[in-house]
């Protein structure tokens, strides 16, 4: 009971911090809108000519994933801020198993990323995206949450090992960007050069993108069931690693 309360209050903390930083909320919408408008409308005609069909239907789930990816990695890495501003120490001397602290903040970060994903989902309506069936929406939302959970825990694991902001750029350029661009969020995986296809299959986000595309646009490459299984397994693994890393933090 005590542990549940701790998880809850740390979850709430993440949410409050998010709701209070209006600039962060608004700023993080710029990129998805740009992608939807520039790529969606820009490549739409070529995509249709090549026989791919409606590119917006294809792209929108990818952009939702992008938004979730960025928000959740940032939420996880927020530990560095906590370290910098000293709050981390306060949580680490509390008489609580650190795993609950990690779970609380990871769930909070994942919820924030999920909200962000839902906001982008709403935005896609304005550029002409329509989900194929309402009954699949709950599955889509589950997929969103799993993606958010995975990347928040990943961010937490990484953030636990970083001392300062120096490593931040490296993570954006060598982890977050490749994860996004190689996930099949922007292009179909069918008929890719072999090497690229292998890389795409190794990218965890590919399965998130595929699950969302399957549930929202009705065109999954691997199959939604397979995608969700893979992501769930990955969530368990990374939560475990993240909890380990977090419990080893010294300040």
């Amino acid at each position, binding site marked *: 009971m*005590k542990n549940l309360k701790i998880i809850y209050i740390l979850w709430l903390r993440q949410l409050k911090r998010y709701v209070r930083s209006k600039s962060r909320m608004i700023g993080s919408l710029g990129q998805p809108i740009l992608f939807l408008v520039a790529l969606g409308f820009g490549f739409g005609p070529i995509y249709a000519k090549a026989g791919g069909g409606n590119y917006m239907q294809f792209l929108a789930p990818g952009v939702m994933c992008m938004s979730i990816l960025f928000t959740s990695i940032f939420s996880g890495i927020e530990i560095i801020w906590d370290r910098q501003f*000293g709050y981390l120490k*306060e949580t680490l*001397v509390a008489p609580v198993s650190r795993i609950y602290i990690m779970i609380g903040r990871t769930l909070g970060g994942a919820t924030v990323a999920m909200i962000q994903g839902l906001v982008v989902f709403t935005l896609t309506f304005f550029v002409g995206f329509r989900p194929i069936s309402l009954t699949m929406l709950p599955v889509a939302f589950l997929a969103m949450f799993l993606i958010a959970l995975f990347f928040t825990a990943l961010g937490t694991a990484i953030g636990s090992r970083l001392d300062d902001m120096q490593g931040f750029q490296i993570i954006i350029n060598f982890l977050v960007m490749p994860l996004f661009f190689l996930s099949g969020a922007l292009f179909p995986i069918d008929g890719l050069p072999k090497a690229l296809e292998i890389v795409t299959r190794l990218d965890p986000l590919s399965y998130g993108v595929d699950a969302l595309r399957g549930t929202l646009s009705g065109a999954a490459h691997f199959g939604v069931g397979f995608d969700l299984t893979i992501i769930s397994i990955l969530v368990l693994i990374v939560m475990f690693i993240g909890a380990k890393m977090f419990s080893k933090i010294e300040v």
Partner: protein
Amino acid sequence: MPNIIEVKKLVKNFNEIEAVKNISFNVKKGEAFAFLGPNGAGKTTTIRMLTTLLVPTSGEVILDGSNVLENPNEVRNSFGIIFQDPSLDTELTAYENMEIHAVMYGLQKILYKRRIEELMKLVDLWDRKNDLVKNFSGGMKRRLEIARGLLHHPKVLFLDEPTLGLDPQTRNNMWTHIKALREKEGLSVFFTTHYMEEAERNADRIAVIDHGKIVAEGSPDDLKKKTNTKSLEDAFLALTGKQIRDEGAENGASRMARRWKH
């Protein structure tokens, strides 16, 4: 009087740098113990080991009967700490900072609501309870941290240079309150400071640490007698020399060590 803190042969090395070299001391229940030393002497490293934040290279720490390494959570329940540098969530309100602390220490809502009000009134922040901490001045933040550190009624309170940057009024107010708690609840206090008159006024016993070793221990009067000096400041200088130390050497060393570890 039983001991609330027992430190035996405590050592901490950051790679080749020996930050704490085999120190032993005890703090009795109810005592106010000052840990003095120049910058980089090993004070903060010692406090971090005593409060479960840092794993010692070797040695043993017993806090309120529990081993710091074996039962960290029991130990964490029995102490409160005011850190040297800020440790508040500035994006939250003062009340929210207090509330999270209360929940993490397992206090029930009815109890913590009352205690938070009491403590925040005591440090004169109750009318600012719904303000974001980022809008607070340095002194206000310090007061809030002090209130927070006392919220779960710890048996030992660690204060790492708690009055740095506080005006005499706030300093006085803080010590008056701590004194009251010592009398009422038998609170033990372990603190570091660079203000010798603060140590003299508030400590029952003092240990002086320099270059990671304890060079003297005793009551303020003992130390003055031993060094044949008139004030604690002179006693301190007689014990540790007049050479100026590298500011923050201890932090620099540990930070570097951590970076190498990764």
